[in-house]
């Protein structure tokens, strides 16, 4: 009886060991056969190629992108593309983890704010060679659209659409209050005065949703001829704290005078669709990117208008064409050429762009722009017109944010933006505190 049990046990152990060991070894074999396949693939283009693509976005974007991927696979039967997508939340965490594991997808959607972080860590591929040999066709794209993806003349990212920062207003509320809507050339003082009038004249709505976020700040600093970050990325780009003080003071004044909505009205708005202007709680939203008009107007269900940011008297123009987001090819990709080919398709193919419908911003290829223009709905047309108009007011874009910029922006939100809205610090305190701590973070850049 005992013996029998013992042998049974031994058998069980053996089985377990076999399962465990074979589990390990098949994995090993997989790796071996994988690399074998890859060697074959590069030699022989007829073999199946697998690409992985990662992006963030709304459901709308996911559906459109997936359809384009299906089209591409139909036209290129030897390519299989597996998509990975999330919302903006968690996207960079996911990517950082994949990067740490040496397991980045072949193509990743990239943001201007993160480009330097990833290039600095040597994770992206210079696409210039593919442009030269024609795999990645950018012949129909003007330099102003490409520039943003370049660092030291190397092209690390291809722009998926152009964006311009701006403000959005509700023409109906302006009319109701009997106030002329803003026109290009209006100033910060104009905003303060008509916002007050709007708040006074409207029943249950405020003039503006105020903002001291980093996007309008960057705009304001550019109007003063400086940037948020120094060109070498080792410190802030401005010397005089008074600039930030003045910028913050404008908002503080508006909140105090009742021209601007109080913070509890807009602080819990998570996405662009939840901003107070959607419900008619404010007549104007000062911090938006042109491609967001499509989402905000469909959420509001009534026409809204895009307008340039306020001008600074005697200042320069702060506007610039911003790449809304990019595609980059990663160092971990085994099929960099195929990846470049897909990006080329995404950029230039007319049918693909009909599906995409400029949801990522105004397309960068000239022919695609012309082709799409007639087919757009109202919001899309407004966005195209706005970007076109803003080009006349635009200066060259600042270099991509330096490494550590994401940490600086967190710092800014927690210690400048939010306390200013809630009146917990004075602009002077906030500006001095921000300079000290931001410079500490940026000083780590060698």
């Amino acid at each position: 009886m005992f013996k029998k049990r013992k042998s049974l046990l031994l058998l069980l152990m053996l089985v377990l060991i076999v399962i465990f060991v074979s589990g390990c070894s098949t994995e090993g074999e997989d790796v071996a056969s994988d690399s074998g396949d890859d060697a074959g693939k590069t030699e022989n283009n007829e073999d199946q190629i697998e690409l992985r693509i990662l992006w963030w976005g709304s459901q709308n974007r996911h559906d459109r992108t997936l359809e384009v991927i299906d089209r591409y696979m139909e036209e290129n039967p030897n390519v299989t593309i597996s998509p990975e997508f999330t919302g903006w939340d968690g996207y960079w965490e996911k990517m950082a983890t994949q990067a740490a594991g040496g397991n980045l997808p072949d193509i990743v959607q990239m943001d201007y704010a993160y480009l330097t972080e990833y290039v600095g860590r040597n994770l992206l591929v210079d696409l210039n060679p593919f442009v030269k040999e024609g795999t990645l066709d950018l012949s129909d794209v003007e330099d102003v659209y490409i520039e943003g993806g370049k660092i030291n003349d190397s092209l690390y990212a291809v722009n998926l659409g152009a964006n311009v920062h701006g403000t959005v207003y509700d023409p109906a509320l302006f009319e109701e209050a009997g106030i002329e809507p803003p026109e290009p050339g209006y100033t910060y003082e104009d905003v303060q005065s008509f916002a007050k009038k709007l708040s006074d004249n409207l029943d249950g709505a405020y003039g503006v949703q105020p903002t001291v976020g980093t996007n309008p700040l960057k705009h304001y600093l550019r109007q003063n001829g400086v940037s948020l970050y120094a060109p070498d990325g080792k410190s802030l780009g401005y010397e005089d704290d008074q600039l930030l003080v003045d910028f913050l003071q404008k908002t503080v004044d508006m909140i105090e005078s009742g021209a601007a909505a109080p913070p509890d009205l807009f602080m819990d708005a998570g996405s662009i669709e939840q901003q107070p202007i959607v419900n008619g709680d404010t007549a104007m939203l000062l911090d938006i990117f042109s491609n967001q008009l499509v989402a905000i107007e469909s959420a509001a269900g009534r026409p809204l208008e895009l307008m340039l940011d306020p001008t600074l008297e005697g200042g320069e123009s702060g506007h610039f064409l911003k790449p809304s987001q990019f595609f980059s090819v990663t160092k971990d990709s085994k099929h960099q050429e195929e990846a470049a080919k897909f990006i080329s398709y995404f950029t230039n193919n007319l049918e693909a762009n009909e599906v995409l419908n400029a949801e990522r911003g105004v397309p960068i290829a000239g022919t695609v722009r012309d082709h799409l223009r007639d087919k757009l709905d109202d919001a899309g047309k407004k966005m195209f017109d706005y970007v076109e108009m803003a080009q006349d007011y635009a200066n060259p874009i600042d270099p991509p944010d330096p490494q550590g910029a994401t940490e600086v922006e967190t710092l800014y939100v927690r210690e400048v933006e939010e306390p200013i809205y809630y009146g917990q610090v004075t602009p002077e305190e906030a500006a001095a505190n921000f300079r000290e701590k931001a410079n500490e973070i940026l000083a780590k850049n060698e």
Partner: protein
Amino acid sequence: MKKKKQLRSQRSIDITGFTFIAPWLIGFLGFIVGPMIASLYFSFTNYDLLSAPSWIGFENYITMFTEDARFIQALKVTFIFVFGSVPLKLAFALFVAMLFNTRRKGVGLYRTLYYVPSILGGSVAVAVVWRELFGREGALNDVLAIFGIEGTSWVTSPDFALSTLILLVVWQFGSPMLIFLAGLKAIPNELYEAAAVDGASPFLQFIKITLPMLSPVIFFNLVMQTIQGFMAFTQSFLITNGGPMDRTLFYAVYLYEKAFAHFDMGYASALAWILLLICALFTALIFKSAQSWVYYESEGGK
């Protein structure tokens, strides 16, 4: 003792034991011990997740205690959260457990219903719903409006955000409640009958019988909930994301932000080890204090 000797001679039984726990053991070594050793190593390095870690000794720990104001803020918030939520949650759980410890119609259904929030506890959906309920346009303000009170946005107001999160975890009292319920069922009814005969009021019965008899269960719940409280993450991350102005910056949220948003895995690992020490310290304190208030019948009152 005799029994033990007998067992020792049967080595095959040991083997059986190890065979059966092998899957767990492998997982434990691979997914817990391994990563822990790695994180201990990383905590002494400067590691940005993407390039190789470089050894910097105790620098991360020194920075934490001398220069990092947000670390102090995270500790402060977490302590307020734990000391605010755990006693409230346990008291509430005990209260509801006592209500359910009766033979009423449909009590089983209620037990299930009240447990539901805990099952959903860590879930994203509940956090999102909470955000909606306590937002400016949420249900809470609608109720307040009936009484003519104008509410604010409870999740983004610097004064109320943390209390709103505490309320959320107190509401998720289901699992300590179930454990209390089991403990209550185990108290012999004779004790209450005898006390009733002697004329003890229900309140006195609660103080003199229920609490002492339940103390091992209270002890268990206290330890578990305290540890869980220190490690709380989802509520803050999803509802307030640490804001406004770091007023709800839970320790775990700060750790996560350092690791994955600021690419500072070395520092985050150091934070994790400090959290482990804090949990260990508090568990030890509770255990130490237990000698004076936890009553074990089997040990003759010791």
